[in-house]
């Protein structure tokens, strides 16, 4: 992981949190992680929380409200608003596990992070390590989450993780993940079928 170029890329700092989720703030100019990607937050004492970007929220401010109806806004003004804006882009993060003393667990972190803790994007190595640990139990957090587009969040995550696993030589991981999703949702036909249809697109994209 130390050689992974994407490890420890800070993408923002924590705004607020609870035991199940948190919200981080970042500038639009920062290369913030895409929807569904895995992030980690160092909680101290050798504990890190893992979560998935479950929502990206861009709030307006007073200046934007004025500018939005102005005709012919110059590119300089747009860039200035984006780089120097006062209201940050909010990344909602759904916790899906944690690492404690080097051991990855697919349970919620023991405590939420504190405000202004650094939120970092996970590199492929970290993604592989987290998604290979255990038996994919963390998928339940996605499937059980309320008020989230579970199918799309899952699809986005499995695309990232499936690609990472494939590139690291495990082409069966994606099938195992699907199997797990079916196990979790098979008693709910109405929910499962749209999820699988979304995952069918991912499979095509992964080419496996």
């Amino acid at each position, binding site marked *: 992981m130390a050689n992974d170029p994407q490890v420890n890329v800070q993408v923002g700092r924590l705004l607020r949190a609870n035991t199940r989720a948190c919200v981080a703030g970042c500038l639009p100019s920062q290369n913030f992680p895409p929807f569904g990607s895995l992030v980690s937050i160092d909680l101290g004492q050798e504990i890190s929380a893992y979560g998935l970007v479950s929502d990206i929220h861009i709030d307006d401010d007073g200046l934007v409200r004025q500018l939005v109806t102005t005709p012919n806004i110059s590119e300089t003004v747009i860039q200035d608003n984006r780089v120097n804006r006062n209201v940050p882009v909010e990344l909602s993060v759904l916790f899906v596990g944690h690492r404690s003393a080097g051991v990855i667990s697919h349970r919620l972190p023991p405590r939420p992070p504190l405000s202004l803790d650094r939120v970092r994007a996970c590199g492929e190595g970290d993604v592989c390590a987290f998604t290979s640990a255990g038996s994919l139990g963390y998928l339940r957090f996605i499937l059980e989450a309320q008020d989230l587009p579970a199918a799309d969040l899952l699809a986005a995550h499995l695309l990232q993780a499936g690609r990472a696993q494939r590139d690291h030589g495990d082409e069966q991981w994606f099938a195992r993940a699907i199997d797990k999703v*079916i196990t979790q949702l098979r008693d709910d036909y109405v929910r499962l079928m749209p999820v699988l249809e979304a995952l069918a697109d991912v499979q095509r994209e992964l080419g496996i």
Partner: protein
Amino acid sequence: MSEPLHQNESIGIVTSGGLKENLHVRLNGTPQQVQEGSFIVIDSQDWKFYGIATDLQLQSIDPRYALEPSRARLPEELAGLLDRQTLYTNLVVLPALMLERGPEPDSADYSAWRRAIDSGDKEEPRPMPVKSIPAHHADAFLAGAGDVAEIFGKPEDESNFVIGYTREQDHPVCVNLDKLIQRSSGIFGATGSGKSFLTRMLLAGLIDHNRASVLVYDMHNEYGLDDTASDTGENVRGLRSGFGASKVQVVGLGGSATIRGSAPDFNLVLGYSDILPEDVELLTRELNLKETTATVLDALVQSLGKDKWFKAFKAMKRGATETTDGDKKVPAPDSVAFWANQNGVNVMAAEGLHDKLRRLFNKPYIVENPPADSIQALVEALKKGKHIVLSFGDYESDLDYLLVSNLLTRRIRAEWEQMTNEFRGKNGSEPRPLVIVVEEAHKLLNREMAAQTTFSTIAREMRKYYVTLLVIDQRPSQIYDEVMSQLGTRVCGWLGDEDDIHAVLSGLAGREALRGMLSRLQAKEEVLLLGWGVPMPILVHSRRYDELFWQDIKTSKKAGFDQAKVIKNLYGD
């Protein structure tokens, strides 16, 4: 999922069920890996359970998964993953036996368990009827050769006869011939289902085993001499051809009888004195006799004697009259009417009986003075261990069959009863068991006749006197219930009629589950073994009755037993 199963590979797990409602096993693979009638073994902790597959049911965890093919919405691989979890097959298993196999041999408890058995503190485990059920998620397997041998016996054991092979894996299934002859048995199947071949095979096994004498009432001349198969046109070896005249003798009915142009070993000719009133009474339906028959017969015996009534009655003239001095016509002294008047019998009843008995009077095999007591000769041959095939030759009518078989059986019954009583009174040697093979059994054992014939008595109680029946029939529903219930071993080929199926299964546990199986047997190839004589019901591919079978009988003396094959099945390569 559709790969062939390896030996000792679990086919599924127990998910529900009970003793009354059968066990449900969720299959791991496709339904085609198991077939109805398969012999199933379930491993549950220290016990093994043995049962028979009676049904396969397609199931889904939600009906919508079954109704809409997943391949219509999803790519092949995803659809496969979905189907594997949501669609499955339930195997319904009728549990029959359980066997304590003890702890795992390498566990700490095993040696203590073994010691208890060796020291006599605990009985040696043996298969027993199910009194419990396996636990949830116990693994189910298709029975291996060792399991089949554990339950049905090893082919190499002297008293075991390989009657067929298990459906999927061709493990030999044995019938214990010693047990078979202890009670009456039956072979059933619709016409064309291979009954005759099966019977020939079983009889060959019995004759080869030679623990009992066999008397076959061969109504259609099928069993003694070589025959030609009606469907293939191939030669079918007869029992005498197979074993030789020193073991099997063909007896022809009538003084000059020939069986398909060949002379029998000896002829059976009945004397007038052999015919008793009860022999006539059981022909009531065949001869359309009236209610008055018994009265007339009784008067005949009373007035003419038990040994002479038939001859005298035959000699009487029907309607003969003479004229008296007063020109009045009166019955002649040698007429039926004269005898009736003399003995207080209704003339019309006597004349009616005489008319109807004319069919008997004219039988060429009933003569006044037979050259020898051929019935006694036949009985003696059986007592000495010979096997007899009584061929009816040209006398294939029901009348001939009913009369001769019952008359002969009556004599045999009396003889064996006497021998048994002498043996029990320490005045004689133990009688040799006798198996009487009755074709078209419903003619002799139907509800109407059963009470009158000797056969029903034999089925009910002659086991104590060393005589049992092997009944062969295509309409078991026509056989009297009380007789059917006495049949120990039932070997049943395909039956189409619901009543026949019901009759064959009467008195057996799990008959509802077995009912469908009987109606779906493959004609000529499959039989279901049932009843007291087999440890549990099992469906088998019957052996082929061909020259190979006879080679097995002659060479190994253990028909169908291929030692190399058995060892391979038991221990693998």
